[in-house]
């Protein structure tokens, strides 16, 4: 890395301000190798407040590795990650989680037998006030259900009215909504969605896309990994294209067509 001196928060902030806006999440020249295989070869990425950044790329282009580095599932060999201008070093997914980066995984990661409210608060249950909470450790079921309702309403999730329904009784789109709502609720800084529509039908996919737009409208920046070009071009503000472990380009739906994006992805065109 050439500018290893530029690791201070002040330095990062100064660098970012040069292009006008401060990225909420910034990765600089990430390198990750697996034995001889180079997963990431100096990839940089900027995510600005209130935008949907799509990451596309062919299989093996380093999409997942990039996301895993950003969410603490992998530790990059080189490079730096800044959240809110401050350098962060995630060792485990929980670290990224604690810092405000919420990830919705492809396999959803919801607990089927628990109800919607319990899933939203899983791992961060709220206890009752007073002695019932402090001594008897009772969770505030009523309060959590109410807050779950409020959160869902605020996110514009209208298909989930009853928060006491077990998640296994929900459709795929509704489960995805629960997973996204859990990621977006409670003041998270960044929401990462990994192929959120891969397992969904057309109508359910549309609901999830609406949900992503809602998140952006609430000011929550979203990183969206997807194979689905029409969906990417529908919701993304900017599109980060990975190719062979590098960032091939960052484009916008306005500046480039879908054909251009595919051409860049496959190496047929350069930017």
């Amino acid at each position, binding site marked *: 890395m050439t500018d290893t001196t530029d690791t201070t928060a002040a330095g990062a902030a100064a660098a970012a301000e040069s292009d006008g806006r401060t990225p909420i999440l910034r990765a600089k020249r990430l390198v990750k190798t697996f034995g001889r295989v180079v997963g990431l070869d100096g990839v940089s990425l900027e995510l600005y407040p209130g935008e949907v950044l799509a990451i596309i790329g062919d299989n093996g282009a380093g999409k997942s590795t990039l996301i895993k580095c950003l969410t603490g599932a992998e530790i990059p060999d080189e490079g730096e990650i800044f959240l809110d201008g401050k350098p962060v070093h995630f060792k485990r997914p929980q670290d990224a989680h604690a810092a405000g980066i919420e990830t919705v995984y492809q396999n*959803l990661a*919801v607990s*089927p037998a*628990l109800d919607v409210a319990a899933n939203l608060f*899983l791992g961060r249950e709220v206890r009752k006030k007073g002695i019932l909470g402090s001594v008897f450790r*009772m*969770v505030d079921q009523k309060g959590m259900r109410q807050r779950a309702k409020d959160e869902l309403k605020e996110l514009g999730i*209208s*298909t989930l*009215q009853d928060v006491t329904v077990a998640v296994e009784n929900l459709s795929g789109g509704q489960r995805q909504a629960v997973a996204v709502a859990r990621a977006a609720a409670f003041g998270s800084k960044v929401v990462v969605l990994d192929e959120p529509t891969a397992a969904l039908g057309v109508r359910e996919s549309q609901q999830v896309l609406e949900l992503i737009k809602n998140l952006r409208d609430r000011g929550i920046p979203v990183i969206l990994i997807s194979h689905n070009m029409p969906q990417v071009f529908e919701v993304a503000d900017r599109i980060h294209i990975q190719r062979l472990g590098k960032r091939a380009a960052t484009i916008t739906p306005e500046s480039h067509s879908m054909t251009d994006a595919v051409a860049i992805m496959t190496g047929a065109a350069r930017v």
Partner: protein
Amino acid sequence: MSQQTTEPPTSALDLAEEFLDRSTPLSRIRNTLHRYPALSPAIVLVLAVIVFGLLNDRFLNPANLSLITQQVAVVGTLALAQTLIILTAGIDLSVGAVMVLSSMVVAQTTVHMGVPAILGLFLGLVVGLGAGALNGFLVTRLKLPPFIVTLGTLNIFVALTLLYSSGATVRGGEMPDLLTAMGATFNLGGVNITIGVLMMLILYVVLAFILQKTAWGRHVYAVGDDPEAARLAGISVNRVLMSVYLAAGAILVIGAWIQIGRTNAASPNAGADLNLDSITAVVIGGTSLFGGRGTVWGTLLGALIVGIFRNGLSLAGLDVLWQTFAVGVLIVVAVSVDQWIRKVRK
């Protein structure tokens, strides 16, 4: 955004469309059973009481009811520990062996080594927790399947029990009163209830509260339901599993105490079938062997059903082998019902 949610017609339509089909009576029954796992054992219990009551008028006699509760107390307590472990999608074949080992430690240290009763019970607790820690360590750190782990520790604990006790029974008469206190009775509406039965019920109330009202309880269900989802939600799966095995160990020690009171002795050969009996109670009680589904009340009902079947069939004059046969049928039916209920998922 809020305008969308205040339009009941569209969202209600969405709900109706996207929810699974509840229209046929059968699927409605299935959904109800799915939501309340203790419901089917409760129905079986009520039917069993009615049928056995009609078959033999001695069945509902207070002395007989008292006997049933006493017979259920020990296996019911072990089944409580078993429920915790099965809720995490595990299984514990060593519950009976751990109970017997700790009962022998309690009895031997107090009677032969002159340790005060309370300290003897504490030593028993140490043994129970140690056994739980060993099972928990093997399951969480070495990632071995609970079935194999506890099959191994079952043999280890049985051997340790016999080595430690030299195969000798300690009689209740030799023990301090505190150790046999669980056998003392009081009268409740004409039925003699032992302190041991009361103790078991208290344990059920406490565990039901913890599982339903605390974050830890929810985490136990979440870990059994889908450990990966639980981990991604920020739950330390290994810590939850370890605490479950430790809690089970502690409950087994109370089971040992109840057992000493019930038989008025501590015998190294007392618990041979208790591991399977406890699993039977849990399964009949509607708790899923795949984890994440079930309640302790279901288990209590399951233990009562087994007790009532055995008692009722023997009062009806049937051979003891037919009792075992009936329990076998109950298990198969209970697991089949569980499978059928679980089809709701897809």
